Structure formats: C-alpha cells, structure tokens
C-alpha cells in the first residue's frame, strides 16, 4: 500500500450555537464533523462526498486549520498539524494548499492576477523579483491563462478563468497536498470539464495529492481514486472508486448512487432508492445509527446502537450493521 501523507484521527469540529440550549440543558452545538478518522495516501485523489451540510467543507478547512478543530489529530508526514505554533504552521502551509469553491469570492478584488499568483512565492521567499515574475508567468501558462493578463484584475475574468487563477495560486509553491473544496460546482458544466481536466493533469504532472470535496458523484468518479461518503458529520463508507461505484454497501451510498442521472440506450427503468424526509439537524443528531431515520433497511438495532466502522477488506470500510 502506498505511503500515508496525512492521517486524520478522531477529528471533531463542533460549533456552539449562541442562545440555544440542547435537550440536556447545556448550550447547543452543531456537530459538523463528529469523530472522523481516515488516511490520505501520497499521490492519490481522495473524494469526499455527501449532501449539503454533512461537513465535507468543514473537514477540508479543519485539516488546513482555516478553522480550529475542536478535537482530534491531523498528522501530515507524521507531524501533528493541529499542535504547531503559528510560525511553524505558516511555514507548513507551503505544503498544504486549498482551491476554493467560489471563484468570485476567493480572489482579492483589489489585487491583480500577477499579484495574486506571485504572493505565495514572495511570502515563502521563492527567489528574486525577476525569478518570481518569471515563475508567475509560467504558472499562468500552466493553468491556461495568457501571461499578458498579468496586470488584470479578477473581475475582468470569467468564472472558469478565475478558478484557474485560484489553482495557479494553490500550486505556486509545489505543495504536496491540495484540498479542492468543490472547485467546479460553481461553474458551468462546459467549463467544469476543462477545469477538472486541468486539475487532473496538474495532479499527474506534479504528483499532487488531492482531497477532492464534491457533491457531484460523476465528477468524483472521473477524478478520484478513492471515495469517502459522509453523512451528518460522520463517515459512512470508504472504498476505492471503482469498488464503491460497482458494489456500494451502505444503504446511504446506494441511495446517493442511484440518484445519478444516467443516459442509457434501452429505456431501462433503474431501481431508484428514494430517501424519505430531510437530513436531520446536526444540532440534534439521531441516536443509534445517524442514518436510521431515513434508511430503507432500518431495523431495531439501528435505532439504539451506533454501528462501528467495519473493514470489508481491500480498504473498503463501511459503517452499517448489515454490511
């Protein structure tokens, strides 16, 4: 098995809710990420999927300490990231970058493209002014932006181009690990493919490791080697991409996969797993298996006992009593 780049152990991210009391009388908390453990291997693209509000983005940001996790461990090449002092943390950030979801919000509107892309180089002392300028132009070409655009402002670009700027900035320092936080969900479908291909190319070229957060299962299938399925702040299933799409075990994964629209020649009516109701509030997570309120296979045990994560072999993990 490949080398571990990151180990995430028992990561928790709770947000207190102001002015709201829980059932036990203590201040209520939103358990956005609730005891999550997984590894990320060197050079892989690990998908993280789930419904809106299941904690995908929160995980990505907690790992990078853009928000401080409540509890847990994030080991990057064996170093506990969460324990680093601010100075060391800032140094380490060269190795861990992020591509944001919103290409309109993630670029400072008062800086030019050149300034935006060259800033990480400047910050981490890449070289002289000339070298930085040269490297910036290289990066722009690498992500498919014309170097003549150096002095332009972000608002002069389309969503896809802006996302390319964001990508160039993220890979400027040759990081080992990049969190891709729904990098294409804000883009038009036609542009999505281009940006996804760009990200895939860069990943292969520079041997990057991605944590690819998305709710688009087709995109995930296309780009990811392994996939984690999350529900309400906890991992439901982890498996290799092919395995997961071919043989989903968890009822939630099955439901998600059956929701992918498909074009087929025969007018075959696919078996569609329909989930009832909405995602329960993360303030008030159901006892037992947190999916039991919507699970089509729910039994008595699911209502009382939280299922442990079972190893089904070959790195296929699943949190279901009936796996």
């Amino acid at each position, binding site marked *: 098995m490949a080398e571990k780049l990151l180990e995430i152990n028992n990561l928790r991210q709770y947000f207190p809710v102001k002015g709201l009391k829980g059932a036990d009388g203590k201040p209520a908390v939103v358990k956005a990420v609730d005891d999550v453990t997984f590894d990320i291997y060197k050079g892989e693209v690990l998908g993280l999927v789930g419904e809106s509000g299941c904690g995908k983005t929160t995980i990505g*940001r907690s790992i*990078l300490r*853009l928000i401080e996790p409540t509890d847990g461990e994030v080991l990057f090449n064996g170093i506990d990231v969460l324990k680093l002092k601010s100075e060391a*943390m*800032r*140094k*380490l*950030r*060269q190795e*861990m*970058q*992020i591509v*944001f*979801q*919103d290409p309109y*919000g*993630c*670029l*400072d*509107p*008062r800086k030019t493209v050149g300034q935006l892309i060259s*800033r*990480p180089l400047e*910050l*981490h002392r890449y070289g002289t002014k000339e070298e930085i300028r040269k490297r910036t132009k290289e990066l722009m070409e690498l992500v498919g932006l014309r170097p003549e655009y150096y002095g*332009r*402002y972000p*608002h*002069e670009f389309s969503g896809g181009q802006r996302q390319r700027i*964001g990508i160039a*900035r993220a890979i400027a320092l040759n990081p080992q690990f990049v969190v891709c936080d729904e990098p294409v969900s804000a883009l038009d479908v036609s542009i999505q493919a281009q940006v996804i291909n760009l990200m895939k190319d860069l990943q292969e070229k520079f041997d990057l490791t991605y944590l690819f957060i998305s709710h688009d299962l087709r995109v995930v299938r296309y780009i990811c080697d392994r996939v984690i399925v999350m529900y309400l702040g906890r991992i439901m299933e982890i498996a290799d991409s092919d395995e997961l799409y071919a043989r989903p075990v968890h009822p939630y994964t099955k439901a998600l996969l059956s929701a992918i629209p498909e074009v087929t020649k025969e007018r075959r009516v696919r078996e569609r797993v329909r989930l009832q109701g909405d995602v329960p509030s993360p303030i008030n997570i159901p006892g037992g298996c947190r999916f039991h309120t919507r699970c089509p296979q729910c039994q008595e045990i699911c209502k009382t006992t939280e299922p442990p994560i079972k190893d089904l072999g070959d790195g296929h993990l699943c949190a279901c009593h009936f796996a």
Partner: protein
Amino acid sequence: MVKKKTIRFIKKNPLATIGALVCVLFLLVAVFAPLIATHDPLEQNFSNRNRPPSAVHYFGTDNFGRDVFSRVVFGARISLPAGFLVVIFSCVFGGIYGAVAGYFGKTLDEVLMRIVDIVMSFPSLVLAMALAAVFGKTMSNAILVIVLVWWPKYARMMRGLVLTVRETEYVAAAVALGEKKSRILFSTVIPNCVAPLLVMASADLGAAILMFSGLGFLGMGTAPPAPEWGAMVSDGAKVLNYWWISVFPGAAIFIVSIAFNFIGDALRDLLDPKLRNLE
C-alpha cells in the same frame, strides 16, 4: 483620447464636476489669498464701519470696519486646512482603531467598542466645547477637539466593514497561504474596506468645516481677530441690520460643504474597482 474621457466623466457626473471646480477654486483662493484680497483682513477702520457691499468693499465692511471680502478670502486659509486635518486624523485613527477591533474581535473588540460607545454617548458639539474650554482657544486645539469627538464614527463604520470582509474567502485564502495576521489586516482587509470610508470622509469634509465654524461661532475656535468663517457669521449675527457681515462667510461655509458632498458621492463610484478599468 484623454479629453474624450474627461468629457464623458463630466457628462456622467455633473455635480461632482461642479463640486470639484468649486473646491479647486476655494483651494486657489486659500493659496493666493494675499493676491486676491483687496485689503488687509485685520485692518480696522472705524470711520468706515458696517458699510454695505460696494465697488471698494465687494462684501462690505464689518463692525470694526474690516473688509469682509478679504476676511472671507483669508478665512479659506483657516477653514479648509482645518477641515482636511480633522477628517484625515479622524479617518486614519478611527479607521485603524475600528479595523483592529473588528479583525481581532473577542474581548479586544468589546473593550475597544465600549470606549467608542462612551465617546459617542456625549453630544459631539457639547463635548467639543467642553474640551475646547479645557484646552484653550487655538486653531490646533479646535482641530484636536473635533477629532476627539469624531473618530468614533469612523471606528464603528470600519469595524462593520471589517467584520464582513474578514469572513470572505479571499481572507481565508490569505490565511491558507500563510500570511501573518497583521499583514492580512493591512494589505487585504483594510484596502477592501477603505472605499466606503473615503466616501464618508469626503462627504464629512463639509461637515468638519461646518463644525469647525460652529466652534468658531460659539467663540470656542480660533481667537478673535482671526478671519474664521464661523466667528464672522457670529459677529454679524449680533448686528442683524448689516446682513452682509454674516451672509458672505455663511455662504462660503455652505458652498464648500456642499461641494465636498458632491465629490464624496462621485468618489464612491470611482473607488469601486469593478467600475475602474472598464472601457
């Protein structure tokens, strides 16, 4: 090319153009006051008191026989710099103060903003008068006093702006790159908050001049012989028969204030980067 752009700008912003022209005019008057004034603004001539406007004294003469026109002209040398200084000091101090409070948040924010609340809970003119009475009547004290009662509103506004900007993704991106907090504050957060602050500042220039004149009117600004507009209005108000003594300096205050307001409005459009660089 440049000319075309200028013409289009004037057509689009007629009020701003008028405002700018008026301000430039007053600035020129302030700079070239000795050349423009027809008389010494301090020279008294008791045989020639309270004369109405005429070819010799364009704006008439006041209670002491001083030439009102020359006094209004020299008054620009007091009121304009005073207004600018008040706004610059308030804006810089209040802006940084509010930005620090908003960006670092938590206890620091609470403490800093309660101080702001305390200052703001006093009526500003009354507080300014009280402070002026303590410090003594000089121009620099008058400016200082107005700054002391004015900076809180910049602090509040800046804090509000910073609170929204600090949650943006481009600030998160800066953190992710490993920028220092202080650098994020000064090179990312503040530049993105500054436009509304400048608009407020330029619109406030008029009010600052007004307040400075107000202190002068109440006898709390500059010491008497100085040709300060507010003080001149006050002089004239005592002898209402001779309207010209008050009306001309009053008109100067009014025109300058409103001109700066026009400029403030136009500045808001200009400072928006989305509108800049557009063909």
